[in-house]
């Protein structure tokens, strides 16, 4: 996974996406906020959601409490 390391922690780009998604954001907004290409953001959001760091509601992604916790580590 591009945005989640084998130890389950987010990568640097994963952390950027989690920071961006503290406010509910579309993939396009996360791409704009992080300056990462949209294809990479779409793939990364999928990974981060699968790891429980993000949830998706009505096309917007928001960092979960688990995601906030890992950002503080």
């Amino acid at each position, binding site marked *: 996974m591009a945005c989640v390391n084998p130890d389950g922690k987010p990568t640097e780009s994963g952390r950027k996406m989690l920071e961006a998604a503290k406010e509910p954001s579309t993939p396009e907004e996360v791409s704009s906020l992080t300056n990462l*290409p949209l*294809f990479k953001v*779409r793939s990364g959001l999928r990974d981060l959601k699968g790891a429980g760091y993000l949830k998706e509601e009505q096309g917007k992604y928001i960092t979960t409490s688990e995601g906030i916790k890992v950002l503080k580590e």
Partner: protein
Amino acid sequence: MEEEQKEELKRLPRLGEKAPEFDAVTTQGNLKLADFSGSWLILFSHPADFTPVCTTEFIGFAKMFDELQKRNVQLMGLSIDSVYSHISWVRNIEEKFGIKIPFPVIADLNKEVAGKYGMIMPGESKTETSRCVFVIDPEGILRAMIYYPLTTGRNMDEILRLIDALQTTDKHKVATPANWKPGDEVIVPPPPTQEGAEERLKEGFECTDWYFCKKKLKK
């Protein structure tokens, strides 16, 4: 034998149709074709990592990367090698040639994507992908294909010219003549009716005949 041939034909993608979907392991994580929706995508295959012609091509693609970005085009490579081989090779290219490879590369070990796109030419090699280029538009439609043999490196200028031509066609509803490059005159599509043919010569284009009219695009 006939069934085999039909099966082979079925596997080949066709221009103007939806490009085959994939969900692939790449050097930049798992990527699906749908992840590129809204951008143009150049999906290209190379025979193998750590080979000289492919190395020159990867350097060529990397040098073209910024120009492609300006045109909303993403790049993605593919070969039947592992992701670790790809990572090792792109790191080697950076170390030995000073060129960073900025695009993802599919590790198609099970030949799934190569099979869907008809990238393997058994007459050349059953274990390597030929040098294929697929241009996919922002709606996921396959717009152009180029196939080169194992021995011949691709021409990056031609790939960029192809992108410029396709984008010009979409924007201005025109065609582009042989050896066209940005700034050259474009072809006005021939009228499909006799009435249109009569009118065409009065429309102010530079016409040799009713079916052969050119115009300069406004900047």
